[in-house]
């Protein structure tokens, strides 16, 4: 603060006027001079400033500003000189002077340093020369500009022409940046120039190269261009195939600066090519396309297959590779001739053409040729068909035909005659010669009417038959025909119309058979038939008479029958009567005969028991005899009644298991002490019978067997069955005393016994009962034996509804 007070304060000094002793002249001199100086100084910077502002191009502008500052500062010191005359602020004046000094020194230094440059500044003469040169240059420039303008016009025109070209053209530098992109490119790819941005073309179009890009680029650098096919993808995703030509752009010094790519859309062409290829491959024939000198250009897959070569082995080779060696030279001649006057036709018509496979084998072919005009000149397309199978078929057909001809000619029993549509004979076989007497030489060319009788000819039979064959395809007729020697035969004729595939009548086949003999036979047969019919009618009359007679007999028989029936009825009634008498008899036997017997027994027993003392030993013996006799009599009565009952009884057949009946019969037998019998009962079938009666049969037979083995130390009784011719035979076998077969016929008689009562008791009714039961069943019973060798009783049970196999053998021990 002090400083500023000092600076702006008057201090202790006297104003400067005092130094001039306030001499007005001197003071005013200073005042006016200093004021003028200050004014001048102040005006100069403004002028400078204005100048600097006007002349912006002026170099050293800052020097002028520095200069202005220095002059203003000088002017200010003069203003303070005037101020100090009356005011003693010398510090301020001093500082202002110091500031002025700094500005002055700076300006001086700068100006001094600028001096060399200032010296360089052209002089006005220089300016003049320079101006002249400048004018010349301006003139040159103007001329250049004019020529440039015309060059630009040419360039624009060329650009426009490039735009007009149908091919997509673009130019890219070696950074792959696109510098040119024509409208066709826009059209083809769908991208506009300004949409491409920084993308490279290969990226943008996803180019697919035929081989490595490096190779292509190397080719471009080496040769200056590359041609090939590329695939590009359009903006909308389609793939287009282009035929591309890349041309190298060089700079002024010949250095490569970029590539112009010119792309033609060949997608359609390619598709067509592909279609052509497909068509070629799909063709059923081998297709070989050769150029004018017979060099193979194109082959299809069929060719590879047919000839056994690979495509690569054929392309570029002379077509004679596919031709047998023997005809090489001839083929080449023919081929050249064809090249001179090419037109579609089949090759080697009528000849047997042969192809040759890689392995040397040859095969029959059929070839058709057609010329093709292409940019590369005339090509010849040959379509080759392997006809091996057809040839085989044809030769087979020929063989068949030959055989058939031999066959037809060899037939002797049939005349086989070929006719033309008018009925003229065209072929004649051996049979025809044999039947009709003409040789082939004599008859061929004659009309068939010569075989017909005058009557048939009058009725136009031959013409009629041919007409019918034409209408119906085939016709048949029987009639008289005339041989060469004038004799006639009865013919069976079949005429068939022969037509080609189109239905055109080719002629007739006439097959004639001599059936005279058959006709004669038929006539004989007819006569015989008539005779027979006559006889039949005669015999019928006889029969009718016989029948009448028979009818009379019949009524006699009928009357006889009636009387017979009456007699049968009578006899039946008689039988019924007898039967009831018999019944009454047996009832009475059962009841009345038994009663006295009972009395005899009863009283004899009472006598024996209660009158022991009164009777002698002899008396007792006699009583025993009486008692034994009554017992036997009782048995006799029982057995007789049983026999009688069986005669009366109706047989109730049911299916019954035989072994079960045997078991029951065994259980009913009285057990005998001190004796062991081995009972061997085999498994027996189930049979249809009256079980009660058959049980009685078994009871009798088993009891007999038991009785007659009594003397045997080890008795064996066996029951079994065997089957012969589907009929079961049951048997009961024992190893007892047996019987003499001499008396076998007496076995089954009532009261017939083959053993003494003392040896073996019995009534002689049991086996009679058994036989009656078996007979009532419709069966048969017989026995086999010899003395001391046991006996076997066999029986059958009559018709059985079904036969069952016996199961297995079982043994039952009894006793």
């Amino acid at each position, binding site marked *: 603060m002090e400083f500023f007070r000092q600076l702006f304060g008057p201090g202790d000094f006297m104003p400067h006027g005092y130094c001039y002793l306030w001499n007005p002249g001197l003071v005013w001199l200073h005042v006016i001079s200093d004021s003028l100086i200050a004014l001048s100084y102040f005006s100069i910077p403004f002028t400078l400033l204005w100048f600097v502002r006007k002349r912006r191009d002026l170099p050293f502008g800052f020097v002028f500003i520095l200069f202005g500052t220095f002059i203003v500062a000088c002017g200010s010191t003069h203003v303070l000189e005037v101020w100090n005359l009356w005011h003693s602020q010398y510090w301020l004046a001093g500082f202002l002077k110091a500031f002025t000094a700094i500005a002055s020194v700076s300006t001086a230094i700068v100006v001094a340093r600028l001096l060399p440059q200032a010296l360089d500044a052209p002089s006005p003469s220089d300016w003049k020369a320079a101006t002249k040169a400048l004018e010349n240059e301006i003139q040159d420039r103007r001329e250049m500009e004019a020529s440039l303008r015309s060059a630009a016009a040419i360039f624009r025109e060329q650009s426009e022409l490039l735009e007009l070209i149908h091919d997509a053209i673009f130019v890219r530098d070696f950074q792959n940046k696109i510098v040119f992109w024509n409208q066709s490119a826009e059209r083809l790819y769908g991208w506009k120039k300004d949409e491409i941005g920084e993308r490279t073309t290969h990226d943008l179009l996803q180019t697919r190269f035929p081989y490595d890009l490096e190779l292509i680029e190397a080719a471009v650098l080496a040769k200056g261009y590359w041609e090939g096919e590329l695939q590009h993808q359009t903006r909308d995703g389609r793939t287009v195939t282009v035929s591309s030509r890349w041309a190298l752009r060089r700079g002024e010094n010949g250095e490569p600066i970029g590539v112009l790519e010119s792309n033609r859309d060949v997608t359609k062409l390619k598709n067509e090519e592909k279609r052509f290829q497909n068509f070629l491959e799909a063709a059923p024939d081998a297709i070989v396309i050769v150029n004018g000198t017979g060099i193979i250009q194109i082959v299809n897959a069929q060719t590879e297959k047919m000839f056994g070569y690979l495509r690569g082995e054929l392309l570029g080779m002379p077509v004679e590779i596919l031709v047998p060696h023997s005809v090489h030279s001839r083929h080449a001649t023919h081929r050249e001739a064809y090249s001179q006057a090419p037109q579609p036709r089949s090759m080697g018509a009528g000849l047997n053409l042969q192809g040759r496979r890689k392995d040397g084998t040859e095969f029959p072919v059929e070839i058709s040729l057609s010329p093709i005009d292409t940019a590369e000149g005339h090509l010849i397309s040959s379509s080759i068909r392997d006809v091996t199978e057809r040839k085989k078929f044809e030769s087979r057909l020929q063989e068949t035909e030959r055989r058939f001809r031999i066959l037809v000619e060899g037939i002797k029993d049939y005349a086989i005659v070929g006719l033309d549509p008018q009925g003229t004979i065209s072929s004649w076989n051996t049979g025809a010669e044999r039947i009709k007497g003409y040789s082939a030489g004599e008859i061929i060319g004659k009309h068939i009417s010569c075989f017909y009788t005058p009557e048939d000819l009058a009725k136009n039979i031959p013409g009629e038959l041919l007409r019918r064959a034409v209408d119906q395809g085939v016709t048949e007729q029987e009639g008289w025909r005339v041989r060469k020697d004038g004799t006639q035969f009865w013919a069976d004729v079949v005429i068939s119309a022969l037509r080609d595939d189109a239905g055109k009548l080719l002629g007739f086949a006439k097959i004639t058979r001599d059936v005279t003999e058959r006709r004669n036979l038929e006539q004989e047969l007819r006569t015989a038939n008539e005779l027979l019919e006559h006889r039949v009618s005669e015999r019928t009359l006889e029969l009718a008479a016989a029948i009448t007679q028979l009818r009379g007999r019949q009524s006699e028989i009928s009357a006889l029958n009636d009387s017979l029936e009456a007699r049968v009825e009578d006899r039946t009634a008689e039988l019924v009567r007898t039967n009831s008498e018999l019944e009454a008899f047996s*009832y009475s036997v*059962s*009841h009345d005969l038994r009663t006295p017997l009972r*009395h005899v*027994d*009863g*009283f004899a*027993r009472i006598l024996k028991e209660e009158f022991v003392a009164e009777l002698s030993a002899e008396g007792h013996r006699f009583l025993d005899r009486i008692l034994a006799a009554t017992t036997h*009599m009782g048995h006799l009565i029982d057995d007789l009644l049983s026999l009688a009952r069986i005669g009366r009884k109706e047989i109730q057949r049911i299916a019954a298991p035989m072994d079960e009946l045997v078991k029951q019969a065994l259980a009913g037998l009285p057990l005998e002490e001190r004796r062991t019998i081995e009972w061997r009962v085999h498994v027996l079938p189930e049979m249809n019978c009256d079980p009660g009666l058959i049980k009685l049969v078994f009871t009798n037979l088993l009891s007999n067997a038991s009785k007659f083995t009594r003397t045997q130390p080890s008795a064996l009784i066996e029951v079994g069955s065997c089957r012969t011719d589907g009929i079961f035979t049951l048997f009961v076998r024992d190893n007892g005393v047996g019987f003499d077969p001499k008396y076998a016929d007496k076995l089954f008689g009532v009261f017939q016994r083959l053993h003494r009562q003392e040896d073996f008791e019995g009534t002689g009714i049991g086996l009679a009962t058994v036989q009656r039961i078996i007979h009532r069943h419709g069966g048969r019973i017989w026995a086999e034996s010899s003395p001391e060798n046991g006996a076997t009783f066999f029986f059958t049970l009559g018709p059985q509804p079904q036969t069952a196999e016996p199961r297995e053998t079982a043994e039952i021990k009894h006793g």
Partner: protein
Amino acid sequence: MAERLEIEILLVEDNMADAELALHAFKKNKIANSVLHVQDGAEALDFLFARGIYEGQSLSHHPRLVLLDLKLPKIDGLQVLKELKGNPKTKAIPIILLTSSNEERDLVASYQLGVNSYIQKPVNFVEFQEVVRQLGLYWLVVNKEPPAAAFLVS
């Protein structure tokens, strides 16, 4: 009114020899004390229905057992059986056919008429005695006789 005999067994038998043998057998088996022997069916019915020569006799007592032969004079055994079993007054009396017949038709007819037992007389007397013994034992000892109410006519 004559006192009715206390008859335990009524033997209906026309054949005297048979009757004698039967009675002998009863005697041997000590059951002969109250046997009444009648010789035909008519008499048997007269006795049981208290008529004819038995008229006036009380019906309050019935024999414990009737032994009936099939072949009887006048009225045969089956007829007697039919009348006795067909009448509520006599229906409860046990009737045993004792006959020499073993004809099926007799058996069938007897059982259909309601006989209580059917026995064929064995020819052998020893066997006959045994049959009589068993018969008496069963019907007179083992078997419970029908109570008086069984003879009431409702």
